[in-house]
């Protein structure tokens, strides 16, 4: 059963990715409410920027997770950050990143995000089986 938590970060991404990532966090930890999910689908660059700004302002959000560094969500978040220097923008976020952030209640959102980025990097890898393996 999900624990009721105030959102600590915004996840902004292409298509249904943000909602999917948050859904994954909820399924694994029950802490999906730590995040607000935002899709860029059908939104103009100005709409994305406005949605991020309004969400950040309304919720006192200090961290925005985005997907592609060159994506419209990351670019919009950077434009918001230009006027809100306390905002931390994370690019390349994956499920491992968000899981670590969601579990880091003991850290400030900014510190939690810094650590979660490393966990997300560590989760990336390749797994192969040698051709002669049994």
């Amino acid at each position: 059963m999900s624990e009721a938590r105030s959102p600590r970060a915004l996840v902004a991404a292409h298509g249904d990715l943000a909602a999917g990532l948050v859904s994954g966090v909820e399924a694994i930890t029950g802490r999906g409410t730590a995040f607000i999910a935002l899709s860029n689908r059908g939104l103009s660059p100005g709409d994305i920027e406005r949605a991020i700004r309004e969400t950040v302002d309304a919720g006192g959000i200090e961290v925005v997770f985005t997907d592609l560094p060159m994506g419209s969500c990351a670019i919009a978040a950077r434009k918001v950050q230009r006027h809100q220097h306390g905002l931390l923008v994370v690019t390349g976020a994956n499920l491992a990143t968000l899981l670590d952030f969601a579990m880091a209640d003991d850290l400030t959102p900014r510190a939690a995000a810094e650590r979660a980025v490393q966990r997300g990097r560590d989760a990336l890898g390749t797994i192969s089986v040698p051709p002669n393996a049994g």
Partner: protein
Amino acid sequence: MPVEVYRIDDRLIHGQVVVGWGQPLDIAFVVLVDDAAAESDWEQDLYRMGVPPGMAVSFMDVASAAAAISTWQGDRRRGLVLTGDIDTMRRLTEAAPQVRAVNLGGVHHAPGRTQRLRYIFLSPEEEAMLRAMVARGVSVTAQDVPGARMVPLDQLLAGTDLS
């Protein structure tokens, strides 16, 4: 043809441009034609951040871009020229008759615009600009990614298919 695509996309340099078009077409340089970006170091740094190693990016106003098109046509690399709005592309095509085809890649919702495709919303003024381009012999088609159906302007403006 060294410039593979002349694209209108209000998200400017983003994933669909760099990855969606850039990789399959082997795009080596992107030119963002935008008067504001051409004067803003901050915006240029922002968009450079989104371009992968090996892909050059430059920023120009319309006049500079129109003057440079002949140079790009002699370039052995493939390029993509991008504007963030229809009016800028209109001005570019008027100043540079070498531009024979324009890709409508993304013009999103704004007050006064009507939805024509999932990713194309147009105001009456913008529709008139696009029609004028076609009347001057420029092919105008909508297509967000290379694998998507290419929709000619007349179908775009006449149809109700919002796929």
